[in-house]
């Protein structure tokens, strides 16, 4: 026998401590030390069996060499992947529910502020609507939208701790993201899980030498899908055609300016990201520390967002590894200079004849000399000046907007795991988030007033101010202050505590895993303080409430939030027989302080799941083609506690209101009271879902895929009910009043293969389809409208049998060609030749609400992602694409044109110009009704990411990896939509009855070209 010394490393030459080395057929064995080194007695010809968790086993036949290096390959079979399921983990092969995972490399590949942005298109069943506005939060819809008005966000769990969002976490710190999509797996989170659960696990140190990494990239952004607006000549034509139709002055051919407003407003933005991380581990401590700095400047001038993140995760093992303590800490600072997004909307409406600034340096405004027909503020004697439209100068708006937002988020926790026995483990975990927000807005009111008209002077301002001043009291109206300053300060805190026992044991072929625990949580502890004052000194150093003028009434607002508490018990039992038959049962019991006033504020959320791994049965065990095949199914119930609550139903007023009355000879004012809305006891929305699925791996596991079907129903959706006109109630009120169902299919398929040592490739895709429908609406409860265009027109309505946020508007059946046609047919008030002609659906000779029709929804019916990866030697190449379809979006910018606002070049080119010119497009004189003319397909396909990388071959023993890469993010989009972007989150974070899907001031999609490096030491 020889004494053999050796070292075990991973593919990156990192030593692997704790590897087991056994001489086959003997009891001689060794364990590698901290540097991966070991010594063992073995004779030539004997076989060493090298095993390490997470790596493929290796058998090495001992030769004459007494010094060997063993490289272990990571075991990348997806089925052995560990999935976080909530209060525990499970092997992917053992799942009975529908859970999707995204790995670190896929997350960092798509440079983004938040990991959710990077998930878009990668996972079937998750529809993510992105906004490219700096610092924006994308909306995430998992398996269809299940609520009209309640919280729509999934529950985010980071390292076991619930958090409000994951905006404060750098994607580079994320190890993996697991998404609990179905009720049977999400019900362990009970009444917060109705919108799905996104579980984020951050990176931990690994045993071994310290590893340093530095990642950096820089990119340039520009508008992906610009819209060409009409130029000066086109604008003049259009204007004059409109004027000819309705009367009024016309514009001259020769004008002074031809401004391209988007060109002025938009710039090439930038993105810059730097991450430094160090990690490692010893016998008793693992550590991970990182610092990330992210900086973005948007395509809107001076719109900046910066974030710094510090992450530290440490694990301590004590008492022979019986007690494991984990500490997580994430600190993030953000610094934002927002600019008015309304500028995009406003720029759309600006006439090209108006300059950004006049020759004398004053801001351009829409003044027009109505006598000469020249767009200018200057007039000769007897000439009259008017305005083309009431909007101000968007460049001035951007210039004057002076706003700063800072936030600090401290998020972290402590987990203790104690092994009571080999089978039984107790876990206790405390997590907390402290959040600070402060915002300062300085508004130079006098400067804005001056900018509003190039003829105004400071003397005039003071004169007007004097005239507006109350002579008796000396009070100056606040609208005539020189400037205003407002400050807002928010501070919130939340904490949670979980305690649970885990029992895990194999009895022969029976594998049992039990979890039993409780949880408490308190959120919304905090306050808001707001102050506003007027006339601070001009120098920024004095911008505080301390220096505001005493002449004006200052505003102070302060509220202490009412905290919310949640108390829960949960249990889960998992059993499988011989890795063939699986059964999971879960129950969670939740009580929420929000519903304490109601009768049933405790609710149970049960679920179960079943699975059958056919490929482990004898008849498939030896199949060459089928490596894995499993069918699974389950049912579960979930809740949503973020529901709107009714406020006081009794109305009073101390002024002159229709509650009050005067009586008696002196007509004394009597204060009365009235009931505004009925008392409705609201509680959580309940979701029930069942689903079936199939996972398979074929052809040496080169082909893997899954299929899922689900049927999910929100049983008691809360609606904002408009009281019937003939009912006693005057105010809208909330009540449980409908169901909403989401039924869908999900497919995922991937092929990966290594052709040779040098060549490997993968190709994959996913597709999901969802049908959303409102059902069983209580009588007279439908009719909730939304999608306001801010001009008195609405575009959406809730009705049984339609999807949530369904479009509802007139159907266009052509263009009025002659006045005669208008007079002899049903038409709306004010119809004229060149206007769109709306269909009289009920043929009653009148065009009114009853003629409006449903036109589907802004929510895509299907979405899909594709990916292609290629590796050749040291070169890596990948392409990712994402698309949606079956949805419609509303071009509100085009629709809401009033007065003499600008139009797109396309609108100009296609317009109606007289009888017979077109029966599709309206003319220069048109109305502003909402109709399907402005409703367009929202389908698009976008190449999300093209990346080419080159990893330098080993060039230094100190550098384990150096890679350069080039990424084109969103370089191409294929869509028929005529606006800036078909991805429109809308107001209130995607509320289906606000402006979701309506482009009114949406931030354009951007494309980004990025160069970056990854360095590892």
């Amino acid at each position, binding site marked *: 026998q020889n004494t053999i010394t050796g070292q075990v490393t991973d593919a990156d030459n990192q030593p692997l401590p704790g590897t087991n080395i056994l001489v086959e057929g003997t009891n001689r064995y060794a364990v590698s030390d901290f540097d991966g080194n070991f010594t063992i007695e073995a004779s030539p010809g004997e076989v060493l069996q090298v095993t390490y968790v997470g790596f493929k086993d290796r058998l090495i036949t001992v030769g004459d060499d007494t010094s060997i290096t063993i490289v272990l390959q990571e075991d990348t079979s997806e089925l052995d992947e560990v999935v976080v399921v909530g209060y525990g983990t499970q092997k992917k092969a053992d799942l009975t529910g529908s859970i999707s995972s995204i790995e670190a490399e896929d997350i960092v590949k798509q440079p983004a502020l938040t990991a959710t942005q990077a998930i878009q298109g990668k996972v079937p069943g998750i529809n993510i609507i992105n906004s490219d506005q700096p610092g924006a939060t994308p909306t995430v819809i998992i398996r269809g939208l299940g609520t009209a008005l309640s919280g729509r966000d999934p529950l985010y769990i980071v390292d076991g701790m619930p958090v409000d969002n994951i905006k404060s976490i750098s994607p580079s710190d994320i190890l993996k993201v697991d998404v609990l999509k179905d009720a049977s797996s999400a019900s362990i989170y009970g009444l917060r899980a109705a919108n799905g659960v996104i579980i984020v696990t951050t990176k931990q140190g690994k045993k071994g030498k310290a590893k340093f990494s530095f990642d950096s990239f820089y990119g340039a952004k520009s508008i992906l899908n610009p819209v060409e607006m009409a130029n000066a000549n086109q604008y003049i034509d259009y204007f004059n055609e409109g004027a000819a139709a309705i009367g009024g002055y016309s514009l001259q051919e020769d004008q002074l300016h031809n401004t391209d407003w988007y060109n002025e407003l938009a710039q090439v933005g930038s993105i810059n990201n730097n991450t430094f991380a160090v990690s490692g581990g010893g016998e008793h401590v693992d550590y991970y520390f990182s610092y990330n700095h992210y900086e973005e400047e948007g395509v809107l001038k001076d719109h900046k967002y910066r974030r710094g993140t510090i992450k530290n995760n440490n694990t301590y093992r004590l008492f022979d590894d019986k007690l494991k303590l984990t500490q997580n800490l994430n600190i993030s600072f953000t610094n934002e200079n927002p600019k008015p997004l309304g500028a995009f909307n406003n720029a759309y409406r600006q006439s090209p004849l108006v300059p950004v600034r006049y020759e004398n340096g004053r801001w351009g405004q829409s003044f027009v000399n109505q006598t000469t027909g020249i767009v200018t503020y200057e007039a000769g004697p007897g000439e009259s000046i008017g305005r083309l439209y009431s909007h101000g100068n968007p460049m001035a708006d951007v210039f004057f907007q002076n706003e700063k937002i800072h936030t600090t988020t401290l998020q972290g926790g402590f987990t*203790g795991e*104690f092994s009571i026995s080999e089978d039984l483990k*107790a876990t*206790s975990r405390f997590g907390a988030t402290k959040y600070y927000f402060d915002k300062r807005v300085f508004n130079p009111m006098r400067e804005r007033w001056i900018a509003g008209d190039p003829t105004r002077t400071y003397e005039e301002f003071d004169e007007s101010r004097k005239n507006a001043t109350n002579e008796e009291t000396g009070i100056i109206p606040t609208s005539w202050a020189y400037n205003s300053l407002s400050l807002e300060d928010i501070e919130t805190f939340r904490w949670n*505590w979980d*305690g*649970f*026992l885990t029992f895990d044991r194999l009895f022969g072929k029976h594998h049992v895993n039990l979890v039993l*625990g*409780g949880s*408490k949580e308190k959120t919304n502890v905090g306050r808001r303080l707001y102050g506003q004052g007027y006339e601070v000194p001009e120098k920024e150093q004095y911008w505080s409430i301390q220096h505001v003028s005493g002449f004006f009434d200052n505003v102070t607002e302060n*509220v*202490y*939030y*009412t*905290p*919310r*508490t949640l*108390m829960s*018990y949960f249990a889960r039992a998992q059993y499988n027989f011989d890795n063939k038959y699986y059964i999971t049962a879960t129950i969670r019991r939740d*009580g929420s*302080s929000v519903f*304490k006033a109601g009768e049933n*504020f405790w609710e149970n959320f049960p679920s179960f799941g079943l699975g059958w791994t056919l490929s482990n049965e004898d008849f498939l065990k030896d199949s060459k083609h089928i490596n894995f095949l499993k069918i699974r199914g389950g049912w579960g119930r979930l809740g949503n506690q973020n529901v709107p609550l009714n*406020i*006081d139903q*009794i109305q009073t007023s*101390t002024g*002159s209101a*229709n*509650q*009050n*009355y*005067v*009586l*008696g*000879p002196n*007509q*004394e*004012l*009597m*204060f*009365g*009271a*009235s*009931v505004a809305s009925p008392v409705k006891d609201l509680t959580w929305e309940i979701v029930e879902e069942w689903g079936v699925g199939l996972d398979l791996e074929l052809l040496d596991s080169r082909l893997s895929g899954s299929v899922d079907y689900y049927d999910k129903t929100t049983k008691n959706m809360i609606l904002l009910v408009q009281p*019937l*006109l*003939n*009912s*006693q*109630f*005057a105010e809208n009120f909330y009540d449980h009043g409908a169901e909403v169902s989401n039924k869908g299919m999900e497919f995922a398929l991937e092929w990966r293969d290594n052709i040779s040592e040098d060549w490997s490739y993968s190709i994959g895709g996913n597709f999901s389809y969802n049908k959303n429908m409102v059902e069983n609406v209580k*009588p*007279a409860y439908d*009719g909730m409208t939304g999608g306001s265009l801010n001009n008195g027109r609405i575009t959406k309505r809730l009705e049984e049998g339609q999807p949530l946020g369904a479009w509802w508007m007139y159907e266009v059946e052509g263009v009025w060609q002659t006045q005669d046609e208008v007079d002899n047919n049903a038409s709306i008030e004010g119809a004229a030749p060149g206007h769109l002609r709306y269909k009289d659906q009920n043929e009653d000779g*009148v065009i*009114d*609400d*009853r003629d409006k029709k449903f036109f589907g929804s802004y929510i895509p019916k299907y979405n899909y992602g594709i990916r292609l990866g290629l590796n050749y030697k040291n070169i890596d190449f990948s392409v990712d694409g994402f698309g949606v379809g079956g949805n419609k979006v509303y071009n509100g910018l085009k629709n809401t044109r009033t007065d003499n606002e600008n139009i797109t070049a396309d609108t100009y080119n296609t317009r109606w110009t007289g009888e017979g010119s077109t029966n599709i497009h309206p003319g220069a004189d048109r109305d502003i009704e909402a109709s399907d003319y402005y409703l367009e397909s929202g389908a698009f396909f976008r190449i999300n990411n093209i990346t080419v990388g080159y990893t330098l071959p080993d060039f230094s023993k100190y550098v384990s990896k150096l890679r350069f890469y080039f990424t084109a993010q969103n370089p191409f989009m294929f869509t028929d939509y005529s606006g800036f972007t078909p991805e429109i989150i809308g107001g209130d974070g995607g509320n289906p009855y606000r402006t979701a899907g309506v482009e009114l001031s949406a931030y354009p999609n951007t494309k980004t070209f990025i160069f970056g490096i990854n360095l590892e030491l």
Partner: protein
Amino acid sequence: TFLFYGCSEDFLDVDSREKIEAGDSEEVFEPDDFVTSTYGMLTDWDYAFSWLGVTEIISDNADKGSTPTSTGTDKHFLDGLTHTSTTPSIAAMWERWYKSIGRASYAIEYAEEYGLTDEDYKNRLIGEAKFLRALNYFWLVRMFGDVSLQHTDLLTRAPEEEVYDFIEQDLLDAIATLPNKSEYASGDLGRATKGAAQALLAKVYLYKKQWEDALNYAGMVMTSGEYSLEPNYEDIWRVYSENGVESIFEVQARGEQIAHGVNQYSQTQAPRGTGGWGWGFNVPSEDLLNAFNEEGDTIRRDATIIFRGETLWDGREVSGSVENPMYNEKAYSSANLGDADGDKNVRILRLAEVLLIHAEAANELGDSNTALTSLNQVRARVKLPEVTTTDQGQLRELIWKERRLELAFEHDRWFDLIRTGQAGEVMRAHGKPFEDGKHELFPVPNDQINQTPEMTQNPGW
């Protein structure tokens, strides 16, 4: 304790910090508060604009007024009799009356359950609310015919007959519990009285052509000793005669801070344009002026119509350059120029109308002497010669004409035209497209039918 600490339900008891909990609030609502808010409804803005459209502008007494391009949203449709189920003024009144009915019903319920120990006081409050509920239902039923009874079914319409039965019962209950005008404490001046309920019931019977009942209830008001005619007709609209001898029920309003009256009632109808001070809507028609002149009725003409360029009774000169030749003087207030809340008490029921109801009922019953006595009281005040004819048909026409002149701009003309079957002939003579079998009723508002598609629409709409 490592695993479970303090899992008690107290954890879920969180103190409210944003909103004061009901138990910690000092606010206690008295039954009277809800009755007050039912009266308060009468001061809503709808009565200053929509109501003008559906009661007067639509009729032969009044035109839209204002400038030709200023439509008042839909007043041009009403004036031209081209209104539809989406005309906002119609929906506004429909909704306003139903909300008022809702407030009245809640006030009744609240008063019954509150635990008031003073039975008379409780019954009076309930009586007031029932009077107001009846008044609102009456306005609804005469405008729309079949309407839903709020306490039974909101989705369908109850037959007109049932609605009238409900109104009748409310008024009989109110008559039984309400005090006479003179029995109220001074501070309660302006509340609904027994006389008001009787007068309204007489008017309801008039619409139902229950002549005997109309005669009886009108007679009760006349002989109650509570009311007499104001000696001078124009005094009825002066501040000093608010709640005066002739007043049976009127909407209370004051001009001082906090001003509270029918929101903008005087302003919408005041002269418009250079030298004017209002919006100039709801102006007397040429036809009304002719009617006064043909009758030689200068007293009522001059009390009803502001003429361009005239000097008003309070010395105000109406400029010769205001937009329209005539305006409604009954809405005029010396104070509150252009203010949102006028001080004008809007007269809803007064003795002269009761006399005319009495006259009409008596005539229909063949008692022309009684009819003439009542009729001539009204005429005598405005110095018009006595009517002497005993021919039932002739007398009927004369009483109708008297109603028009006496009650012009008191929000009854359109319904009198419909009730007496004259509407089609009269309106068509004015070139308005009145369709028999359709325009007798207003359309149920489209917004309501959208909400409750089960509800039937009136014929022709």
